[in-house]
């Protein structure tokens, strides 16, 4: 390179960044954001889970070894909330699978307007869950709610108060949880439908042609070809939805706030209460870590099963 060129390039250094400088310019802001917002809190909360720290007390965290974890593991109430969460996850993921797969089977058939129908079905998934929680709370309202009206149960004295787990003022335990499950299913079945649909569309036509030649009935084809072909994608849907269901917070918080009593108190709602109403920061960090461990354990089970299914 001649010296004239050299001066020219150094004179326009700002316009002409080196490749390395450009890389740094992209990487570092992201990396810093990640470290500040994710990595540091992750490790700091791990540290806090071994202390008696409270975020509103002007006291430095004090190291108390495994005391928080021992407390969590011995706390019966917490395990009841874990059980509620498990029940919620099992019911809502189970129903989502059935409904999502059914919807996928329906919209796979091309009919007039099937594109629009598919798009309409996807709308619930695109809404914010806080919004969904709040408007379903209104819909469930026993006095002016839409749902009872549509069901023809417009007398508040005898109609069900869904989110309060009462019918005609008689307690029906579980009604509130089922109501929340219903909304979660309403919101997330479209997601399962999308995954199932991509699985269904990936099944080559010739398999069905071969099955028709092999004299398989529709039911036999469904059981022996459609289901096994879609199963890996359905398992991925189960994985995603289970993780999400275990972390469920905004929908439940928006609809019931954990009530009535603690009937819908899922672990994430309780964690919020521990951390930001009781300000028991150290203890709640320990709870959060136990949730994390449970989710990782469940995910690993699924992934192991998924790999097994693929290798056959």
């Amino acid at each position, binding site marked *: 390179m001649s010296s004239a060129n050299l001066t020219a390039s150094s004179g326009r250094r700002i316009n002409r960044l080196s490749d390395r400088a450009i890389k740094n310019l992209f990487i570092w802001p992201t990396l810093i954001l990640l470290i500040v917002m994710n990595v540091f809190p992750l490790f700091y909360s791990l540290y806090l889970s071994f202390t008696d720290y409270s975020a509103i007390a002007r006291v430095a965290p004090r190291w108390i070894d495994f005391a928080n974890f021992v407390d969590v593991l011995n706390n019966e109430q917490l395990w009841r909330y874990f059980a509620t969460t498990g029940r919620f996850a099992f019911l809502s993921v189970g129903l989502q699978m059935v409904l999502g797969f059914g919807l996928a089977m329906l919209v796979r058939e091309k009919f007039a307007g099937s594109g629009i129908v598919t798009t309409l079905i996807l709308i619930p998934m695109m809404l914010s869950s806080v919004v969904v929680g709040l408007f379903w709370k209104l819909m469930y309202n026993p006095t002016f709610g839409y749902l009872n009206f549509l069901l023809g149960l417009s007398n508040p004295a005898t109609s069900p108060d869904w989110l309060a787990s009462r019918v005609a003022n008689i307690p029906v335990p579980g009604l509130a949880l089922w109501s929340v499950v219903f909304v979660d299913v309403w919101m997330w079945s479209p997601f399962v439908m999308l995954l199932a649909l991509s699985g269904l569309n990936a099944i080559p036509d*010739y*398999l069905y*042609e*071969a*099955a*028709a*030649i*092999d*004299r*398989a*009935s529709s039911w*036999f084809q469904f059981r*022996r*070809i459609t289901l*096994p*072909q879609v199963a890996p994608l359905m398992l991925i849907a189960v994985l995603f939805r289970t993780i999400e269901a275990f972390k469920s917070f905004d929908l439940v918080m928006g609809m019931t706030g954990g009530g009535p009593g603690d009937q819908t108190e899922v672990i994430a709602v309780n964690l919020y209460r521990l951390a930001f109403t009781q300000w028991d920061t150290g203890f709640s960090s320990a709870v959060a870590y136990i949730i994390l461990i449970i989710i990782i354990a469940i995910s690993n089970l699924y992934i192991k099963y998924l790999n097994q299914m693929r290798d*056959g």
Partner: protein
Amino acid sequence: MATIELHQVEKKFGDFPAVKPMDLTIQDGEFLVLLGPSGCGKTTTLRMISGLETVTGGTISLNGRNVTWLHPSERDVAFVFQFFALYPHMTVRQNIVFPLQAERMAPADIDKRVAEVVKMLRIEHLMSQRPGTLSGGDQQRAALARALVRRPAAFLMDEPLGALDAELREAMRAEIKQLHIDQHATTVYVTHDQIEAMAMGDRIVVMSNAVVQQVGTPAEVYYNPANLFVARFIGSPGMNLVQGQFADQTVRFSGEQNYEVPAEWKPAIKKATGSNSVTVGFRPEAAHLSESGALVGEVYAVDIHGSYSMLHVKLAGSNGDFEIVHVRTDRRTNYPIGAQVRFDLNPEMVRFFDTSSEAAIQRENA
């Protein structure tokens, strides 16, 4: 076992005719090959017989039973697909038992049937593998096993060897032929490979442009092609076709050469060609070189095939134009390029075609 009859069977995709109305009877136990270039309608015909494609006209009957509008599962035919169409999530064994389980056969009977075909196709060692891990040939054996295990009335095969490499294709060709000889089951076999068709078929149906061009034994379509298309399509290279004017017992080619028409052909040609334009057809092996040959040409190229050589001979035409004909010759003599050669045509193997209608001219007492 079954006789398959097609009566005026037709298929149109929109306005486009994929198969124009055709009649065909496939005899019980026959190995019938549908042969033609891609897009000629042969696969569509096969799929209509299987029921995977509906007809737009005509009737199909199987053993006298009208099956035109029956679902594939009600026709009792097996179909072997070009790309095997094995169920990828099942083992070979599960693939083979699939049709038997679909008809709720008792497990003991299933085991017996499977044992039979496994022995026949020698695929014992593949049974617990998935199709994805198998070679093309083994996948095709598994697909054949799935078809055989049912003991269907007829086998329909859609280019079953098309996805295999050349060496394997030849071995599998013999295997399928052997299976047919064993089973003696009615088989309809689609291919675009005329060598395969000649080697395997009891009869060949040559198709082109949605129309059946000729139905006949391999020898018939080879020696007596019904028209110029069949003459060109069958054989490699195809039949030599040289156009000329028929007058006064001879055909005069454009290069001022005269070919004396064999006596037994004269009346037929005279009757058939109004315009006097006739195309002379002869196979490469029908020409033999000799010093005294009536036709003269110049060596254009030589292909050595090992057991024989194929000469490309340039026949001079008018205005510096020329035509290439292929002449089969023994491998020992060396013909330099550009050398002049003379040859005669075996009068028994010469065929004549009406140039304008492209149809073969038939001898009256043939």
